[in-house]
């Protein structure tokens, strides 16, 4: 449904997005991750046709966004980053306007507004002016606007930003449900959200795609993924690390914590190691009072940190 090829955007000398390519099919929810200023919003603005790309091409369905913008835009529902709404309108007026500009007429407008209001829990504020709404309601009003025409493609820039935990949960469930039938792109920097909702994730840093895969695949690439964490009571730290280092297939051993006689260590396998490694570590631990022993799954945020450069990190 969405095909992005070699998308590049420069603002003067600054390259905001550099040669980004990806596709999103129907039934896929693509999570867009990256540090602030990585180019997530700029990419989404090009996908939705707000910004023209400096180079590259965006195809929506069968329509090229540059050459055939109106039919392409018709397929998309878009929630911009700051969730802008016309503040001088009521929620009902705003949604009716959105439905009408999307080409709906007469009773279809009423039905569409009713549906969106129900999905976004806006009944209580329906006739309230947008500028009197709290941030959460404002956000959901703009969200309702993006799904008013039941689009085949949804592009959402930080859809859960500024919501309380309950609302976040609701919106995530909604995205997940809609993702079964639509093609969805959404950006976030909440990594747990990606695991909860996305079928695939892209990590973008300084304008380029640095990772693309399912959340499970990305997690497996985390530095600690596949390592074995062991917590032992009553054994000296040197003895633990020494014995673990001698385990067949161990690449290196990291002492995580040594406190009150409890030693926590992490053993990294050599890349060539196989399922036997776990057993070998288990054998080495024989005779110790083992409180914990498990293979680490890897965490998305560890992976995220290992491949993106933060401007707060000091080298």
């Amino acid at each position, binding site marked *: 449904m969405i095909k992005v090829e070699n998308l590049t955007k420069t603002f003067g000398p600054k390259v905001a997005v550099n040669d980004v390519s990806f596709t999103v099919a129907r039934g896929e929810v693509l999570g867009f991750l990256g540090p602030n200023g990585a180019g997530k919003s700029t990419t989404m603005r090009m996908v939705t046709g707000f*910004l023209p790309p400096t180079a590259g091409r965006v195809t929506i369905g069968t329509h090229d966004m540059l050459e055939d913008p*109106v039919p392409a835009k018709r397929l998309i529902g878009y929630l*911009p980053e700051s969730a*802008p*709404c016309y503040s*001088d309108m009521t929620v009902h007026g705003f949604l009716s306007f959105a439905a009408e500009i999307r080409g709906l007429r007469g009773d279809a407008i009423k039905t569409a507004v009713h549906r969106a209001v129900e999905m976004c829990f806006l009944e209580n504020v329906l006739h309230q002016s947008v500028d009197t709404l709290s941030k959460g309601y404002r956000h959901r009003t703009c969200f309702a606007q993006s799904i008013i025409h039941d689009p085949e493609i949804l592009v959402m820039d930080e859809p859960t930003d500024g919501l309380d935990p309950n609302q976040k949960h609701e919106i995530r469930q909604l995205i997940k449900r809609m993702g079964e039938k639509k093609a969805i792109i959404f950006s976030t920097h909440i990594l747990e959200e990606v695991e909860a909702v996305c079928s695939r994730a892209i990590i973008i840093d300084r304008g380029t795609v640095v990772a693309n895969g399912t959340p499970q695949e990305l997690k497996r690439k985390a530095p600690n993924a596949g390592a074995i964490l062991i917590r032992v009571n009553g054994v000296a730290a040197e003895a633990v690390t020494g014995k673990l280092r001698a385990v067949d297939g161990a690449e290196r051993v990291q002492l995580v914590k040594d406190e009150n006689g409890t030693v926590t260590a992490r053993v990294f396998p050599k890349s060539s190691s196989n399922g036997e490694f776990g057993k070998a570590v288990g054998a080495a631990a024989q005779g110790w009072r083992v409180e914990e022993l498990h293979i680490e799954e890897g965490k998305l945020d560890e992976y995220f940190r290992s491949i993106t450069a933060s401007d707060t990190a000091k080298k």
Partner: protein
Amino acid sequence: MNNSLGNISTIAKRELSAYFASPVAYVFIVIFLLLTGFFTFMVGGFFERNEANLVSFFLWHPWLYLFLVPAVGMRVWSEERRQGTIELLMTMPITPWQAIMGKFLASWAFLALALLLTFPVVVTVKYLGNPDLGVVAGGYIGSFLLAGAYLAITCLTSALTRNQVIAFIISVVVCLFLILAGWPPVTNILTKVLPDNRWIVELVSAFSVMTHFEDFQRGVVDSRHLLFFLSVIGFSLFSTSVALRSLRS
């Protein structure tokens, strides 16, 4: 085509409702009517003239519009940019041109409504004497076009900045230039400075709304003047579309 008219009218309806959702519309209309009344009857000497025409009424329109039209139009695009709703508008399945036309026509219709509410002046002059209604109609048409020209210029300046105050000031300056270029005190000075180059003076004053508005006040709807106002509107709106496009790249 039908579709495009539908989009324009959807935008225009929203824009008009935005005027009436806030007190701005009512404040504007009341001030406009009070000022036209004041200038026509107190300053313009409507009664002293003892003539059954609306010269003292239309005379003041270029000056009144100078401040009131930019006040109406300054928010058209800058507010859209400030609130970020331009991102919504430009990702809707409409062309930028439809959005520009919808917004312009809505504001123009609003100004037309304010202008039509001056009808008591016509009623007064009709009650007191026997005016030539054709001349009155010509004046109204000219005034409407004049407001449209100022409004289109304000739309352009509004698209150039997200600050309404700046949009207002720049529009006033540009519109003031369009008045002064053909205002007799200014053209007289120009003639004195450039006695041998009358064509320069004529060229400059040809750009003035005053030169083109005068004939309308006499009831003459000349196609040249019509063309002048429509081309000012067309040019400004086209420049608006260029400004909006450059802002997005």
